[in-house]
């Protein structure tokens, strides 16, 4: 391998290897950034979806609780006014009054009941007006209906509204039947009406309560029109936004990768051109003159001292070398000719 080839190899390797490493680093960086970003976005989507779902569930729960409480409260106010206006004084008058029956047992939202009850002793709440009145009218919740076994959570709420024989506001959750194959969660509120009536059968004054409950799942399923929990619907919507964002991000990264590759290709072409020019200059300015000098030196070495040394006009090291070689050639020529004359 001559000096020109060696120098060419050094230039190419010295130029293109760092460019290759640089290009690989940039590509690696872009791909790495893409992977990390998508991973982070994925995780963000999962976390956000879960948190938004839980928060939405919580706010919808509060909204449902507030709705039940307000309906029960407004019903209590209306019943108090109605009872006083109609001058009702006994439980018997109450349950037989068609207006009271209408108000006290109406169904709202298509499926949710309103009822009127009385406090017959400590924790002894008994239903007086209810859509299912006949079955549960004045029945003791434990002794007659055995709700301590079938509906302990409901029993607890109702008993809490009659603690100490006083009508007390009491709200809470309980399970009643099934919705979509799952236990149906209900929320109820019992609100004191602020009226006591005489039960002519027992001879005791009975503080009145009114209450209502709502199927928590069905109430919100009507709102969200979905079998899943409302919070899950919100989380699902959020996840779809995340997926859209992810797709946008992937598109952006694809564009970035494409542009990076274009810039790298341009950089490689430019560098290759610079390397080509450098190689041309190396060959023409250094390697070729050295090659010329080597050829003349070979000629002189073989006895041909007539060829003049080229490149003597140059101002660089090659010029210095050429001029000195030419001086030696001339000396050899003069000595040779002089010796011939002797």
């Amino acid at each position, binding site marked *: 391998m001559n000096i020109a080839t060696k120098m060419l190899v050094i230039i190419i390797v010295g130029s293109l290897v760092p460019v290759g490493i640089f290009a690989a680093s940039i590509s690696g960086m872009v791909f790495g950034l893409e992977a990390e970003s998508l991973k982070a976005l994925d995780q963000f989507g999962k976390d956000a979806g879960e948190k938004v779902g839980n928060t939405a569930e919580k706010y919808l729960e509060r909204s449902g609780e507030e709705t039940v409480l307000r309906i029960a409260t407004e019903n209590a106010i209306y019943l108090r006014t109605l009872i006083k206006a109609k001058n009702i004084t006994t439980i018997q008058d109450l349950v037989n009054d068609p207006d009271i029956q209408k108000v006290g047992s109406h169904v709202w939202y298509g499926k949710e009941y309103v009822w009127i009850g009385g406090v017959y002793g400590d924790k002894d709440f008994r239903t007086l007006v209810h859509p299912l009145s006949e079955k549960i009218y004045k029945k003791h919740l434990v002794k007659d209906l055995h709700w301590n076994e079938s509906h302990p959570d409901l029993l607890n709420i109702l008993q809490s509204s009659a603690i100490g024989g006083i009508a007390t506001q009491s709200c809470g959750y309980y399970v009643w039947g099934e919705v979509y194959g799952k236990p149906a969660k209900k929320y109820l509120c019992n609100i004191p009406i602020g009226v006591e009536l005489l039960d002519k059968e027992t001879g005791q004054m009975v503080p009145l309560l009114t209450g209502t409950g709502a199927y928590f799942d069905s109430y919100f399923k009507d709102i969200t029109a979905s079998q899943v929990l409302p919070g899950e619907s919100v989380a699902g919507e959020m996840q779809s936004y995340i997926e859209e964002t992810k797709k946008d991000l992937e598109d952006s990264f694809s564009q970035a990768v494409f542009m990076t590759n274009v810039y790298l290709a341009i950089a490689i072409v430019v560098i290759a051109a610079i390397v080509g020019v450098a190689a041309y200059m190396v060959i023409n300015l250094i390697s070729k003159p050295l090659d010329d000098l080597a050829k003349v030196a070979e000629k002189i070495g073989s006895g041909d001292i007539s060829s003049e040394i080229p490149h003597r006009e140059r101002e660089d090291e090659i010029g210095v070398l050429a001029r000195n070689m*030419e*001086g030696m050639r*001339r*000396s050899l020529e*003069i000595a040779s*000719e*002089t010796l011939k*004359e002797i």
Partner: protein
Amino acid sequence: MPVDYDLLLEELKKEAGPLAKIFLDKAMDALELKDLNDTNYKDVLGILKMNPTLRKYVEVVEKRLNGL
């Protein structure tokens, strides 16, 4: 610039290479010169021009020195 031994030797070496010193010294010996100056260097060049191979180089040096 005044011509002296070093200047002439330098100019001759440029044209004829390292052997110039031998020829210059021999020429000065032949003329029994101990040193060179503006007046006697032309005699030395005249002796050197007697060598046909050396002549062309000496003439170049002579022209250059005349131009100084």
